[in-house]
């Protein structure tokens, strides 16, 4: 344990033991202490707009059906039949009124309640043997949403999501609330990379320093209106609550002029002004900072950029949301969505999507060079030499811990949290410090298992339940035929 404690101490002073990017023991602790408790993004409400729409998403090894049930409420069911543990849904998206286990035919309404249990009377002696009443697919321990972003926490006692995100929600709105309608998400593209999950999260949170080097090529081919990579040092990095990100400094002008400069049409600008607070508008309009990449702890990231998508001088902004899903200490599944304001004009949506494809995601020209670095880093972190090396992650900090540049004042930056102009690894440190806090703090007690089907009932209640169960069974037989997939 001593060596583990020293890992966290080193991280807290900005020195990163290189092996944390490829270490099975560290990953085991991330699994037990971090991913067991943090809020994790799984889906957006716009992915499941109609009753019965579902997507299947994973939290590490656990598969959840995220579904809009008939009344319109969103639920997340653990994708495992209560009987023998088969997955009740093996598609990754679709529309269904019921999920029926292919093994023995148990079926569940899309709100999770068990509805069909073949030969309930003959096999179990009815309700007395297996009480269907109140039996549901196991719900996600905690489920909450912000601006339509649906999160799961494996901790039943997780704090409300809003509280967990804290002041980062101020910045989340730039990506996910550009009008009353909010965003619509498309995708995700999914692919697996042989890199540790933390590297991407850190990069998106605050690495403005890599842009001029890693992304030289996209500037050289004229994807941007200006030598954008060099402009990176004029932006700031901010950290607020449970997330942080990077910004670009825009040329002088009003809020409207700045939003037009990155390619937003006037009708979208008008709607942004209606939904953003004065402080949110001031970050762009008065302070001149435009949000770019960001990460919410632990493994969700955002990007906002504005390349040229056709010959000419016009740029078009796009937004992308992603998660870095850990598969192991050296493999990550990237899930990358394109996001756009639901009220945006159709032509804008098309070109914004094109901008996304050109820059980020599985084929994105920025992304391609990033991943090459991260795979290489992960490979190198495996060996014994990496255990001797403390990477210097102290950029922006002098020997005594004081900042190289002073944080922006309230007059200079209207957003919450702390922000610094120029290159620095403030946000990577924030992210890793949080990571250290979670890893050091062992869960106090193991979760108690959930018992299903064994509810003690009085004889009279049992008789009433029996009648109800018989009715439910008949209903289940009648509806089983309609449980087939409806196409979206």
């Amino acid at each position, binding site marked *: 344990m001593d060596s583990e404690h020293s890992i966290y101490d080193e991280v807290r002073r900005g020195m990163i033991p290189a092996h944390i990017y490829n270490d099975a023991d560290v990953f085991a602790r991330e699994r037990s202490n971090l991913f067991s408790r943090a809020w994790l993004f799984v889906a957006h409400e716009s992915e499941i707009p109609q009753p019965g729409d579902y997507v299947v998403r994973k939290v590490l090894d656990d598969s959840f059906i995220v579904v809009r049930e008939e009344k319109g409420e969103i639920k997340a069911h653990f994708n495992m039949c209560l009987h023998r543990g088969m997955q009740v849904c*093996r598609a990754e998206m679709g529309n269904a009124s019921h999920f029926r286990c292919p093994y023995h035919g148990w079926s569940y309404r899309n709100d999770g309640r068990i509805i069909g249990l073949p030969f309930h009377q003959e096999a179990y002696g009815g309700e007395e043997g297996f009480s269907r009443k109140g039996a549901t697919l196991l719900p996600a321990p905690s489920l909450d949403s912000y601006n339509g972003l649906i999160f799961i926490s494996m901790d039943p006692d997780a704090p409300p999501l809003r509280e967990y995100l804290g002041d980062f929600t101020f910045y989340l709105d730039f990506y996910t609330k550009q009008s009353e309608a909010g965003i619509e998400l498309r995708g995700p593209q999914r692919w697996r990379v042989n*890199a540790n999950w933390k590297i991407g999260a850190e990069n998106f949170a605050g690495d403005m320093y890599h842009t001029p080097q890693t992304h030289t090529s996209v500037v050289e081919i004229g994807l941007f209106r200006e030598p954008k990579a060099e402009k990176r040092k004029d932006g700031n990095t901010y950290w607020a609550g449970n997330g942080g990100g990077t910004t670009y400094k825009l040329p002088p002008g009003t809020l409207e002029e700045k939003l037009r400069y990155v390619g937003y049409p006037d009708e979208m600008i008008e709607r942004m002004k209606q939904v953003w607070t004065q402080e949110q508008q001031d970050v762009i309009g008065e302070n001149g900072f435009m949000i770019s990449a960001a990460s919410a702890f632990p493994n969700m990231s955002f990007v906002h950029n504005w390349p040229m998508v056709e010959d000419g001088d016009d740029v078009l902004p796009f937004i992308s949301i992603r998660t870095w899903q850990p598969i192991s200490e050296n493999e990550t599944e990237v899930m990358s969505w394109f996001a756009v304001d639901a009220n945006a004009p159709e032509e804008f949506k098309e070109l914004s999507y094109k901008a996304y494809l050109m820059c980020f995601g599985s084929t994105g020209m920025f992304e391609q060079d990033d991943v090459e670095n991260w795979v290489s880093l992960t490979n190198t972190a495996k060996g014994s030499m990496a255990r001797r090396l403390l990477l210097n992650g102290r950029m922006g900090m002098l020997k005594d811990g004081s900042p190289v540049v002073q944080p922006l004042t309230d007059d200079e930056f209207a957003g919450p949290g702390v922000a610094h102009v120029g290159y620095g690894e403030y946000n990577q440190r924030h992210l890793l410090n949080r990571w250290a806090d979670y890893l050091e703090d062992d869960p106090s007690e193991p979760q108690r298992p959930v018992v299903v089907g064994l509810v003690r009932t009085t004889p009279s209640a049992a008789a009433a339940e029996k009648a109800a169960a018989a009715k439910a069974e008949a209903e289940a037989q009648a509806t089983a035929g309609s449980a087939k997939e409806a196409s*979206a």
Partner: protein
Amino acid sequence: MTLIGADLSAQAVLGKGATTARKSGESLSFGDPRHLELSRWLVEEAYALDDQRYEEWLDTLAEDIHYLMPVRVTTALGAGYTTSPGMAHWDENKYSLSRRVARFLTEHAWTEDPPSRLRHYVTNIRTFESDVEGELIADSAVLLFRSRGDTNPGSTISAQREDVLRLVDGRYQLARRVILVDESVLRTQNLAIFL
């Protein structure tokens, strides 16, 4: 799923300007000169892509090309779709492809420096006449093997392609390519290649 290029291209977000050519009739005889010409075209292209001769490759693409690879999703039998609505890996026109090629030609496309060792295996070629004058259709299966570094396991991508080839001044140009990749989750670090 039966790949019908015209339908997938029409459903794609950026497929508006593309040719709408559809197959007509049965596949051409393997001895048909047009089948031999198209087969040769596809094999020559595979060598160009293996060698990363991308400028040369770009020259063989029509000005109005639609180059599409939808994202595949696992859906229940009978759902009626196996691609993610409104999302693709590539949904490209000549401009965006030209930027991708231009990037590889800079000295700073790090992901391909050192370059991958690539092998495009192209097989199961069959060819068709189409309902558009001067345009033929070729189906093929492609397996890409990609090796990077000395000991990293190679990655493979398996896909079916439906291509529209247009005869212009005695030369075939690729006017539409729809790639139906066989994996929902790609197991390669990026698509810094072409299929």
